């Protein structure tokens, strides 16, 4: 009995509480809707949202200083110079060869990693995997040929880049150090090309590596057929060729070593040297180009110092 008496007022109280809760919820829903509407409005200008600002950090007005800042404060953009001499990027002068070489290197990295998904560096499987890639793997033929032709192309573009740098005298002070880095990168490119040659494990690659490592026999001091090699106790089982091949003949160890040098060690070393190379291009005054020219329309008043070459908008030089 006592419980029933208690329940009546409780019910009324509950009703009151419920209506209050209902009102509260309605108000909350209203507020939420309003907020949603306000938020939706911001999508018309997404660069003003907190999310956008947390990622991109700065809203830039179109001023020279802000344009420079937007390059400098972005992790991807900051690899590029904020400003460059417009004459330095004339294709007739640079051929774009350094950039093309780097681009081909990126293509080779991506296609190479994809090829690694189907390739086993063992004597039983290697050549079989190449046939599998060529004939059955979706896009396998495309990937392998991109990698193969890209490799040929990279060697060519490296030589052309070097040729251009030589012709334009861009190896001279202050760029002599970067020229040396470039020579190391050339050697790394050739080594990458050479180590990749064996990986299909076909007759072409096998005999190419046989011939190439036979030359290592004739290394002075370190090769068993080279000058002073035999006197230093070099044999086919302890010389530099043995260390390269992991044995006295081109066999399973040589294939595995080629694979590791090709896919891991050499690309890592090359990437580090490329980083230094690009950084030095910036620090040595940007891409080397012809003497800076000033458009006729840009000349405001005679400047102190040497007279700049005046260029007409048509690109013809004033005589």
């Amino acid at each position, binding site marked *: 009995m006592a419980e029933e008496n208690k329940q009546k007022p409780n019910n009324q109280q509950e009703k009151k509480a419920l209506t209050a809760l209902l009102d509260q919820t309605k108000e909350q829903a209203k507020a939420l809707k309003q907020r949603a509407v306000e938020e939706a409005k911001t999508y018309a200008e997404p660069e003003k949202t907190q999310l956008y600002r947390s990622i991109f950090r700065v809203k830039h007005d179109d001023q020279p200083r802000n344009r420079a800042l937007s390059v400098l404060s972005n992790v991807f953009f900051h690899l590029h110079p904020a400003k460059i001499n417009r004459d330095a990027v004339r294709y007739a002068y640079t051929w774009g060869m350094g950039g093309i070489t780097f681009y081909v290197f990126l293509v080779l990295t991506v296609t190479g990693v994809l090829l690694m998904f189907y390739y086993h560096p063992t004597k039983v499987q290697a050549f079989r995997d190449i046939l599998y890639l060529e004939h059955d793997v979706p896009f396998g033929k495309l990937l392998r040929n991109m990698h193969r032709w890209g490799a040929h192309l990279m060697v060519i573009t490296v030589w052309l880049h070097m040729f251009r740098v030589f012709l334009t005298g861009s190896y001279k002070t202050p760029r002599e150090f970067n020229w040396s880095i470039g020579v190391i990168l050339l050697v790394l490119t050739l080594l990458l090309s050479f180590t990749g040659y064996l990986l299909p494990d076909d007759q072409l690659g096998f*005999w190419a590596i*046989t*011939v190439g*490592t*036979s*030359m290592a*026999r004739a290394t002075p001091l370190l090769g068993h057929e080279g000058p002073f090699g035999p006197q230093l106790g070099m044999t086919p*089982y*302890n010389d530099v060729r*043995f*260390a390269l091949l*992991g*044995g*006295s*003949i081109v*066999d*399973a*160890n040589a294939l595995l070593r080629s694979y590791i040098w090709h896919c891991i060690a050499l690309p890592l070393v090359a990437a580090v040297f490329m980083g230094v190379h690009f950084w030095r291009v910036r620090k040595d005054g940007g891409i080397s180009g012809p003497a800076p020219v000033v458009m006729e329309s840009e000349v405001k008043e005679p400047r102190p110092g040497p007279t700049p070459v005046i260029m007409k908008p048509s690109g013809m030089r004033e005589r």
Partner: protein
Amino acid sequence: MTEPFAKEAQVAGPAASSKPAGDGQPEINTLKMRRRIIWASIWGFVGVNFLMFLRFFFPRTLFEPKSVFSVGTSSDFGLGVDTRFQQQYRIWVVRKPDRLFVIYARCTHLGCTPDWKESENKFKCPCHGSGYDSDGINFEGPAPRPMDRAHVELNAQGQIVVDVNRLYTCERGKPCHFDDEGAYLVV
């Protein structure tokens, strides 16, 4: 190596001398010696590790074809070049009317395996075109010398035992070893 010493001066402060540095600090020379020991340990460690890294590339055990092996008795071979062991051991057994010798099937130019051309009675290297007659003597292409011959001897059972680790060369301008003992068998 001037860099560490510059740092030492900083550690010791401007009044660096061989006197005690004060505040219970050890003598400056002691500090220098400590630094030297630390750097020597670091470079020693790195150096030893580099040597280990280099040694790592020279395997102790090899899984390669045997270099000392038996090829049967001399009566197994007719006159001329026998190619039956080329795939397995990289050799040719050559029998002449009076002697038998074993050519190591490696081109002396850059190490490819030449082919025996029966119809032309010569060895021809597919890599750069070196040609050798049936005795393995070079007569065309870039090969600098005749193909090397492997050591041969008879064991107690009359089997021919070949050792391709012991090669006999015959280079122009140098003594020819093809008539040395062990370079051929009299049959």
